[in-house]
């Protein structure tokens, strides 16, 4: 009984640690995906002059989850007639549970919504480009940081479990 309890505790803590590590590893990937999606959006706006609902649909088709869901919601909101900036703001709030991003990442991403669709193509391009540059910086930092942190958390989970077992025994 005792042995089983020990194993369960170690496994539980270990899984928790692995899950944290997984989330940390996903963050740079999601940031990269986001900057890719923004690049697509930028192309659609600047070269295609594609209206936003259609542009979101195209971006949606070429990204993976969770960004797919994000752009899908945006597309639906715009087709319902919401303005782009409020739709972006609200989608960020609603969808951020599906992501492994940190609040500071969301702050940058939320900037895209400011004036989205309200100005001409050059303005839109400037805005998106700025966000993209910030995202790339953020991604580089996140990569370095996540390599160490992920390893730490995956060990820490198991070690924490073992420590707990030792204390309890």
């Amino acid at each position, binding site marked *: 009984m005792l042995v089983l309890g020990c194993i369960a505790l170690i496994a539980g803590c270990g899984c928790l640690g692995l899950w944290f590590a997984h989330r940390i590893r996903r963050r740079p990937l999601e940031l990269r995906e986001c900057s890719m999606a923004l690049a697509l959006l930028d192309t659609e706006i600047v070269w295609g*002059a*594609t209206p936003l609902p259609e*542009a979101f649909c195209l971006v949606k088709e070429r990204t993976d989850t969770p960004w797919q869901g994000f752009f899908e919601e945006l597309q639906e909101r*715009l087709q319902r007639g919401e*303005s782009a900036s409020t739709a972006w703001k609200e989608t960020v709030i609603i969808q951020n549970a599906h992501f492994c991003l940190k609040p500071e990442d969301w702050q940058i991403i939320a900037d895209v919504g400011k004036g989205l669709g309200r100005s001409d193509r050059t303005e839109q391009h400037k805005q998106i480009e700025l966000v993209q540059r910030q995202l790339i910086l953020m991604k580089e930092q996140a990569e370095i940081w996540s390599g160490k942190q992920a390893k730490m958390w995956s060990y820490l989970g198991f070690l924490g479990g073992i420590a707990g077992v030792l204390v309890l025994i």
Partner: protein
Amino acid sequence: MSLHYTLSVVQEPKVMSTLLKSIPPQKNGSHPELSKSAALWTDMAKWFGDDIRFILVSLKGVDYQKIEELRLRVGKPLLLRTLDRDLFINQEGEITSPNNAYFIKHEDLACALERMTHSSVYAVEEDLKQGFITLPGGNRVGVAGEVVLQQGKIQTMKHISSLNLRIARDIPGLSQKILPLLLSMAGTVYHTLLISPPRAGKTTLLRDLIRSISNGVPQVGLNGQTVGVVDERGELAGMWQGVPTYDLGYRTDVLDGCPKASGMSMLVRSMSPQVLAMDEIGHADDANAITDALRTGVQILSTAHASSIEEARSRPVIKHLLEQGVFERLVVLSRRHGPGTIDGVYDLRTGRIL
């Protein structure tokens, strides 16, 4: 002999009977008619922000079919224009005096513009440079605001201060009366110019002519002909992402959003039309392109702003075209008995009124 052809839509009482033909049961009381009108208003209301949408949905005693324009100006009352009246509308959707009406805020305009462009102002940049945007359904919205210049050229428009939503009407059969006058013995269409002051039904008549020519009207000996339409302002076909809102006939090719001058030669080269139709000529380039197109043997069908033949002659570009004898028929429209009143059809070769 001079005949003044007047269309069936001219006299006031007749207007409604023709316009309402498309509305199925309307004789038995006004109820279905009103609900139809309300439905159309609800549909129209989706282009506006919450305040104006509420007003339009709750409009009382305003028949959608009678309204020609819907005007929004910053700090000015909400205005609906009918054939001969200006209606000021208050917060509850009732007709009222100008001082009690709902005053348009800047936010209302921004919201309307955002909804009309699906939050993508950049996508209609080219249209905005010309001062209008076209809605799905072919309704055109005139826009006025602060124009941004770059190296002397219009870059875009910002701080929009006025919107004018013109409700496009499609009245099949409008052209039947004048079509026989525009046909030669051989059954081809003469080079025709339609002139009228604004809001007199030029575009509607042209659209109907295109449809008749394209489909053919066997009763007057007209076989269907291939029609090429250069729809620079997107008003004739009302194209929305490649799908025309208005039926322009079986044999019509539409070049949407293309400048008339280059569009004409493109169509002639690629689609070999027998008739080339375009809206609102007035630029010198248009005139040159028309003279070019004439050499390829197509028939030209076009419109221009001018209230009379004299006024048309005073506009340099039109004058030049008239003097060169490009056009064979001139149709003058007016609003004397409502939009679509035909004041006269002239044979420009002989100068007679037909």
